[in-house]
């Protein structure tokens, strides 16, 4: 039986290849994602190994629940650590993520993808992973000197002893490039921009006093890292902690892993969609193939094969295709990994080149995915094959199993769709944990339900879609339309695969379009300010990067501007949960930000040490105005603060302090946002132009009007949409291959018919046109179902998010029409090969009677 199965596969190469491609594409996305993330992971692991090679103990401010802290502690700690028995070398330094290097034309380098990191230069070579490259200058020694990483120097076209502008705590300053450093022997630290100063200079540039942000310790030979850590801990003041280098390396690796797992979950979700679509295609192909082989299978039955053997044979064939497809998918996964890497680089993440990593886990998962996919897809067709009666070998009509009644199909489809919708609703509207799983499972089940119902709609919809065809293209058009109606189940199944991809594209379009509408409303309601200034640096993706305090001061010197109001942002811990808070100047904030305060909340918060909260947040915590609450800051620890008022607008932050209170609890390194109004009678454009020199000199500050903020948000949404659509293209591509597959198998079935048409005078062009329009109808059918589902899904999600500022539901009509047109074009592409094949069919094969 196994040999029979394999022989039959090789006898039908095209069918075999087309089915395998669907598997290859799905599996390669899975494999590619793993290969890509494993590669980055191993690169980071190597990197961290290098960084922590000489570090046995790391001393740092206690970070507690605050992520990413560069909180300083007094320099005096260093002397205490050095005095501990067993310390070979200890070196203190400062680090900051606020430094920004400008290129020769004054634009910011880095910060959008890979981070910009500022450090003091470590004198102890064993503790400093950076090296000055040969013949590339020297370490920084004093004021006005800077060292950059070699990758940044090359990219920006700097040369040794060039003047380089760095914007940090004191605003833009010029430094002399005295050295070019490599990381071990690598020029690039994964694309990060690294800027280094001598310790004293670093403190000045980053805005530190007589402080350190970290001490690295190397133990004497024979002293264990853990022992030394314990001993050092004894001498540290409260708020400062010692951990082993290994521990810190582990923490960093875990952080990187978390970031990467976010990416891989995203990519794997799209791979999942592709595989889901692939399952439709593969099942459909097997079903058609079984139908076409009825006589052959019946003959096997007639000469003594059992139904069970037939089933085993069909499943064996499927598994063989799955096996070959999975292997090819793993190989193609390398290409996919390179594509993902290229895409990431295109998006501004400097992913370094390097050998791709294939872990055994990747192979196992990919094989499992590919084999399970084909196995599940072949079960129903195999069962059908096993039920073919032997008499079908002699009588063609004997094989036709009675059609399940439309009624049964309608009921089954409705029930399945209903279950899917129910799960969706639970995920969206009930507050359950892991809502996304309910949503995803609900959507998948709803898709299956609709695909069960789709054959019912195939005939009427084909009539509607194909209505103009006979008028436009005569008999070719008529036949195209009628052919799609002949096997409604086949047409619907093929269209359903496309439906899934199109539905998700449509969903994202609707969601994006609604988000845009909501963003526009929010911005115009929330920001009365004429101009908003923010950093372009996104090293910390969760918080706006600080703009040098010098910037707001400089803005105030312009007569074109009226009020200039700076805001600061920070993290805070309440009851063990981290929150974001904002700080403002109570005397000017009401002119630039619409907080909708209740009563005199804004003037009340000018009382030092007090805070105001959003009224919803107050309720959630069970607080009342006047309560004194316990909050924890990274710098000052637990502080008791009175709640002195409430406000209604919670789009930005739930908690606000005055800037004065902020400065006494945080290390003030700059402003998160600066808001400004123009002076009376000055146009916004005019003012923006006047302050351009100041904005330009800081390099990393962008000035935006209200509509520019909206534009930017819309651009970002569009980019995200483009990215999602791009990732969904794989699913669409698989669906298009499915159309090709179905048509190829169908024209094979219709050999005689096409031959007859050719004999009585149909030219090849008409044959091609007939197949092409058949494909267009199938594709449009799928796209219409998909767009419908996508819009409904988008509407549901927007309703579910109504509490989170989604006021507007908007259907992007243009994009929807575009999707339909593109789907029709995809149909044209899908038909190229089968249409050619049909047009070239040998007429005699078709008409000669057996």
């Amino acid at each position, binding site marked *: 039986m196994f040999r029979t199965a394999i022989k039959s596969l090789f006898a039908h190469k095209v069918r075999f290849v087309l089915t395998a491609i669907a598997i290859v594409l799905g599996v390669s996305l899975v494999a590619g994602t793993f290969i890509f993330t494993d590669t980055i992971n191993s690169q980071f692991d190597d990197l961290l190994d290098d960084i922590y090679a000489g570090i046995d103990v790391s001393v740092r401010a206690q970070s507690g629940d605050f992520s990413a802290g560069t909180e300083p502690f007094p320099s005096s700690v260093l002397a205490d650590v050095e005095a501990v028995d067993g310390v070979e070398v200890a070196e203190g330094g400062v680090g900051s993520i606020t430094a920004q290097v400008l290129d020769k034309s004054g634009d910011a380098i880095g910060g959008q993808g890979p981070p910009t990191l500022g450090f003091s230069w470590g004198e102890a070579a064993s503790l400093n992973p950076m090296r000055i490259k040969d013949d590339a200058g020297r370490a920084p020694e004093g004021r006005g000197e800077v060292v950059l990483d070699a990758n940044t120097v090359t990219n920006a076209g700097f040369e040794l002893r060039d003047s380089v502008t760095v914007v940090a705590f004191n605003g833009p300053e010029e430094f002399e490039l005295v050295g070019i450093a490599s990381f071990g022997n690598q020029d690039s630290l994964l694309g990060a921009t690294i800027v280094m100063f001598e310790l004293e200079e670093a403190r000045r540039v980053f805005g530190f006093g007589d402080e350190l942000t970290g001490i690295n310790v190397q133990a004497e030979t024979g002293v264990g890292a853990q022992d030394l850590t314990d001993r050092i801990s004894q001498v540290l003041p409260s708020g400062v902690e010692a951990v082993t280098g290994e521990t810190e390396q582990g923490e960093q690796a875990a952080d990187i892993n978390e970031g990467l797992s976010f990416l891989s979950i995203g990519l794997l979700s799209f791979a999942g969609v592709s595989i889901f679509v692939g399952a439709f295609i593969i099942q459909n192909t097997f079903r058609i193939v079984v139908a076409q082989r009825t006589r052959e299978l019946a003959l096997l039955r007639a000469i003594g094969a059992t139904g069970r053997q037939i089933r085993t044979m069909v499943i064996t064939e499927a598994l063989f295709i799955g096996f070959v497809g999975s292997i090819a998918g793993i190989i193609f996964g390398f290409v996919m990994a390179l594509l993902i890497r290229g895409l990431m680089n295109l998006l501004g993440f400097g992913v370094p080149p390097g050998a791709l990593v294939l872990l055994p886990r990747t192979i196992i998962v990919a094989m499992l995915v590919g084999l399970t996919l084909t196995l599940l897809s072949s079960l129903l067709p195999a069962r059908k094959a096993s039920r073919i009666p032997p008499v079908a070998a002699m009588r063609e009509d004997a094989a036709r199993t009675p059609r399940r009644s439309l009624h049964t199909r309608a009921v089954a489809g409705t029930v399945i769709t209903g279950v899917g919708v129910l799960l969706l609703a639970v995920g969206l509207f009930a507050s359950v944990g892991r809502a996304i799983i309910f949503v995803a499972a609900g959507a998948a089940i709803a898709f299956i339900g609709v695909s069960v119902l789709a054959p019912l709609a195939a005939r009427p919809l084909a009539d509607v879609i194909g209505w103009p065809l006979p008028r436009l293209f*005569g*008999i070719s058009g*008529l*036949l195209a339309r*009628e*052919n799609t*109606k*002949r096997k409604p189940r086949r047409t619907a199944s093929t269209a359903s695969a496309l439906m899934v991809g199109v539905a998700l594209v449509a969903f994202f379009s609707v969601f994006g379009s609604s988000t845009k509408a909501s963003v526009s409303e929010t911005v115009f309601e929330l920001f009365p300010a004429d101009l908003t200034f923010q950093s372009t640096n996104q090293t910390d993706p969760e918080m706006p990067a600080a703009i040098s305090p010098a910037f707001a001061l400089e803005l105030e010197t312009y007569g074109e501007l009226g009020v200039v109001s700076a805001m600061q942002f920070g993290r805070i811990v309440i009851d063990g949960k981290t929150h974001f808070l904002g700080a403002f100047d109570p005397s000017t904030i009401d002119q630039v930000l619409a907080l909708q305060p209740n009563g005199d909340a804004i003037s009340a918060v000018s009382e030092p040490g007090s805070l105001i909260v959003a009224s919803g947040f107050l309720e959630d915590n069970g607080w009342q105005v006047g309560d004194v609450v316990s909050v924890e800051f990274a710098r000052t620890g637990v502080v008791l603060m009175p709640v002195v008022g409430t406000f209604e607008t919670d789009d930005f932050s739930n908690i606000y302090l005055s800037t004065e209170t902020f400065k006494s609890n945080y290390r003030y390194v700059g402003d998160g946002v600066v808001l400004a109004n123009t002076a009376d009678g000055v146009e916004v454009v005019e003012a923006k132009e006047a302050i351009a020199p100041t904005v330009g000199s800081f390099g990393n500050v962008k000035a935006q009007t209200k509509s520019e903020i909206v534009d930017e948000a819309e651009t970002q949404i569009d980019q995200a949409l483009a990215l999602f659509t791009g990732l969904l293209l794989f699913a669409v591509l698989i669906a298009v291959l499915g159309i090709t597959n179905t048509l190829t198998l169908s024209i094979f079935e219709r050999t*005689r*018919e096409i031959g*007859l*048409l*050719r*004999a*009585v*005078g*149909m*030219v*090849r062009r*008409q044959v091609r046109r007939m197949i092409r329009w058949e494909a267009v109808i199938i594709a449009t059918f799928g796209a219409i179902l998909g767009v419908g589902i996508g819009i409904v899904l988008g509407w549901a999600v927007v309703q579910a998010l109504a509490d989170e500022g989604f006021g507007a539901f908007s259907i992007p009509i243009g994009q929807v029409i575009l999707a339909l047109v593109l789907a029709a074009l995809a149909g044209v592409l899908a038909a190229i090969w089968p249409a050619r094949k049909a047009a070239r069919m040998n*007429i*005699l094969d078709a*008409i*000669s*009677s057996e």
Partner: protein
Amino acid sequence: MTTAATTTYAARLEDGVKTYGDGDSAVHALNGATAEFERGRFTAIMGPSGSGKSTLLHCIAGLDSLTSGSAYIGDVDLSTLKDRDLTLLRRERIGFVFQAYNLIPSLTAEENILLPLSIGGKKPDEDWYSQILDTVGLRDRLEHLPSELSGGQQQRVAAARALVSQPEIIFADEPSGNLDSKAGAELLAFMRRAVKEFGQTIVMVTHDPNTAAYADRIVFIEDGKTVDEMIDPTADSVLDRLKSLGG
């Protein structure tokens, strides 16, 4: 070639050779066959299995190409035509009736009859169409799909389709081969009437003496060559002739 000759014959084959494969395994389906088919007559081509009669029909009808020699429809040499022109020629000047699978299953009887015209984007001549429908006797079944018609009805639809574009010549390949004797007789009688009443030219391949007896003339073929012919045959005379040919 004289002008008179080209106008007398609806189709001709001159020294037709058709070889499949090459070298030792070459099969000569036609081996220098020559035949003429006069206008307004019903000609049958007879021969034993493998004699090349179907190949002869395919080559002269523009469905297959000769290895050497010439096939003419009217005075058009088919070997000079590219696929497109050959297809147009079949569409406009030739009608076909095959043994089976004559109809497109997704089209109604009427759409099938009108197929050669619709492919060319043409409308039927109303009088002619009406006359055909009366002769075939299928007026009440026009909206039916082929699967709803009997075998005999299907073949009559095919015959009507062959007639509808008023072709110069109709080729039929065992048209009654799959029919019971009553339905077969009806179909052949209908074809006979088309020749007698409308002056249609029909060339039919068959191996059955009773079927061949409906023709005005029979061309016998053996081993890829035309070997004999017979005018105004009867079933008995055909049988006698076949015996003498050793078929």
